[in-house]
């Protein structure tokens, strides 16, 4: 890549970022908060969910990814994941939360929030945010923390595409720029809405997030987290090019033991991710848990049996990959589908992702080190579209909640909400639109981010460092001594 091309693009990117931040800052304003009832069980549930999602990233994802790289890059892999967790946490508290979860302004409003809550200004100890139940609140700081863990894991997922060859300084910059330009906007598009009280009282929804306005369903982040990370990783893999020796030398995972531990912790933590996304400890959270069990188990098995048939042996990496593919696919559907529907969704996801990680990948020859495209983007797309199907009450799904029909008594959510009429075909089309929007924003945004980083510090380590391993080269340490 040419440095000059980089410079130009970076300048443009910087400009865009600046504008975006400024316009957000200038006009952002939030509607008066409704009085919200509060149940300690919800705060307890959200705190533990938040801790679980942290555990998904460190040590979960660090081990899942780390186990798959070669021993000489192990330390670098887990350092990158831990550093990303730290950096995104700080960035989120400083401006990320505000960009994602406050109202933006002007034409950009459906795409990104403002800076009214930058530095958590206005987020008091007693502040609450509304859940999906009319008039029910949880404390805002736990929502801030919970959502932070999503931003962190998404960023960490993305780097799997270009593992074993990227400069640490590039990763540091990536952890600042990518969430800002890509993740926070997409989170805003999907999850920023007026809340049940807003809907019930008929406030204007034209500043709500773009995908939300479309009517797209994404319970826990299929588009925001998985398709997004998958595309970002894929674009990075293409831009950085293949690893030295790719296709010629054997590059077996250095420890499938650790990969299995990582996959297991991802599964355990994913209950915080999916059931926690309900923001309340009620029957929808329970539904999300049940779906997160059955779809995951089904996808693990469908990948394993498919591989057994096609390749002759059932492998651990296959089973573990299937488990993750199932988790990815069920994410957007978890609070909406019924268990038998998501079981089928999981079966499909396992097979489709297997196909992409083996046949498609070797046919095209790209070097997406840890298959973030084949598992997260593909699994995410299967899940996003499938959500449109399994949510159908006719298939045992929960339907789409009509927030003007939820009852609350004594501050507690009293029963199942009313449901809107459901049209599967039109919902699947809406889902497809949301997927396309994510593909486009993430693809272009990530590309810009890599250009900027390329200009500022360069993306790739020297061939010598790559041969010797990033552990010694970038960190002066080895993961193992003896």
């Amino acid at each position, binding site marked *: 890549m040419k440095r000059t091309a980089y410079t130009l693009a970076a300048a443009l990117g910087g400009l865009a970022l600046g504008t975006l931040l400024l316009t957000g800052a200038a006009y952002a304003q939030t509607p008066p908060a409704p009085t919200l009832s509060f149940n300690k069980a919800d705060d307890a549930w959200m705190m533990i969910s938040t801790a679980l999602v942290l555990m998904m990233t460190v040590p979960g994802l660090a081990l899942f990814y780390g186990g798959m790289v070669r021993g000489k890059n192990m330390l670098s892999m887990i350092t990158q994941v831990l550093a990303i967790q730290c950096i995104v946490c700080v960035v989120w508290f400083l401006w990320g939360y505000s960009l994602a979860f406050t109202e933006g302004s002007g034409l950009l409003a459906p795409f990104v929030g403002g800076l009214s809550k930058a530095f958590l200004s206005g987020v008091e100890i007693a502040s609450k945010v509304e859940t999906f139940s009319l008039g029910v609140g949880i404390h805002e700081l736990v929502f801030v923390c919970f959502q932070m863990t999503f931003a962190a894991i998404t960023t960490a997922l993305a780097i799997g595409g270009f593992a074993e060859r990227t400069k640490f300084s590039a990763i540091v910059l990536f952890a600042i720029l990518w969430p800002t330009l890509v993740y926070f906007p997409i989170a805003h598009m999907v999850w920023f809405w007026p809340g049940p009280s807003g809907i019930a009282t008929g406030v204007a929804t034209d500043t709500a997030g773009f995908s939300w306005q479309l009517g797209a369903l994404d319970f826990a982040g299929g588009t925001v987290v998985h398709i997004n990370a998958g595309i970002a990783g894929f674009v990075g893999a293409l831009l950085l090019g293949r690893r030295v020796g790719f296709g010629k030398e*054997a590059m077996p995972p250095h420890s499938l033991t650790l990969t299995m531990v990582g996959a297991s912790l991802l599964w355990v933590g994913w209950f915080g991710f999916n059931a926690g996304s309900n923001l309340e400890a009620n029957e929808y959270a329970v539904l999300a848990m049940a779906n997160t069990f059955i779809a995951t188990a089904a996808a693990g098995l469908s990948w394993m049996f498919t591989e057994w048939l096609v390749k002759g042996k059932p492998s651990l990496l296959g089973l573990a990959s299937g488990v993750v593919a199932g988790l990815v696919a069920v994410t957007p559907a978890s609070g909406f589908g019924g268990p038998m529907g998501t079981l089928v969704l999981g079966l499909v996801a396992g097979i489709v992702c297997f196909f992409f*990680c083996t046949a498609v990948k*070797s046919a095209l020859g790209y070097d997406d080190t840890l298959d973030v495209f084949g598992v997260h983007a593909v699994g995410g797309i299967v899940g996003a579209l499938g959500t449109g199907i399994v949510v159908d009450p006719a298939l045992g799904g929960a339907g789409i909640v009509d927030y003007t029909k939820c009852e609350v008594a004594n501050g507690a959510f009293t029963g199942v909400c009313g449901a809107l009429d459901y049209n599967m075909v039109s919902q699947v089309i809406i889902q497809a639109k949301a997927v396309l929007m994510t593909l486009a924003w993430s693809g272009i945004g990530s590309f810009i981010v890599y250009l900027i980083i390329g200009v500022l510090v360069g993306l790739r380590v020297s061939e010598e460092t790559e041969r010797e391993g990033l552990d010694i080269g970038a960190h002066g340490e080895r993961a193992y001594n003896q």
Partner: protein
Amino acid sequence: MKLVMAVIKPFKLDEVRQALTDIGIQGMTVTEVKGYGRQKGHTEIYRGAEYEVTFVPKLKIEVVVPSASVDKVIETISSVAKTGQIGDGKIFVLGIDQSIRIRTGETDEDAL
């Protein structure tokens, strides 16, 4: 003195060591190695990437013995390490000029 260097199947180590002790050998040095030969390796597949693993794990035993004992040592190793299947390994004999025991400074056959 001779250095008898034998490449054997790993699970035979304890038997070979015992047998050598029985014929009076008091020391040896063992190294984990990878062998390439007639015995085929296997294929490993990691998410579609197939690797032909051509090397198989073996152990290399090095024993320095007085020249007079070489035949007995070879015989002993041969008989104990043999399973009759491909990959049982080889024995090579090399000449040794000197031996020294570091602790005492003893040399040659005294050092073994």
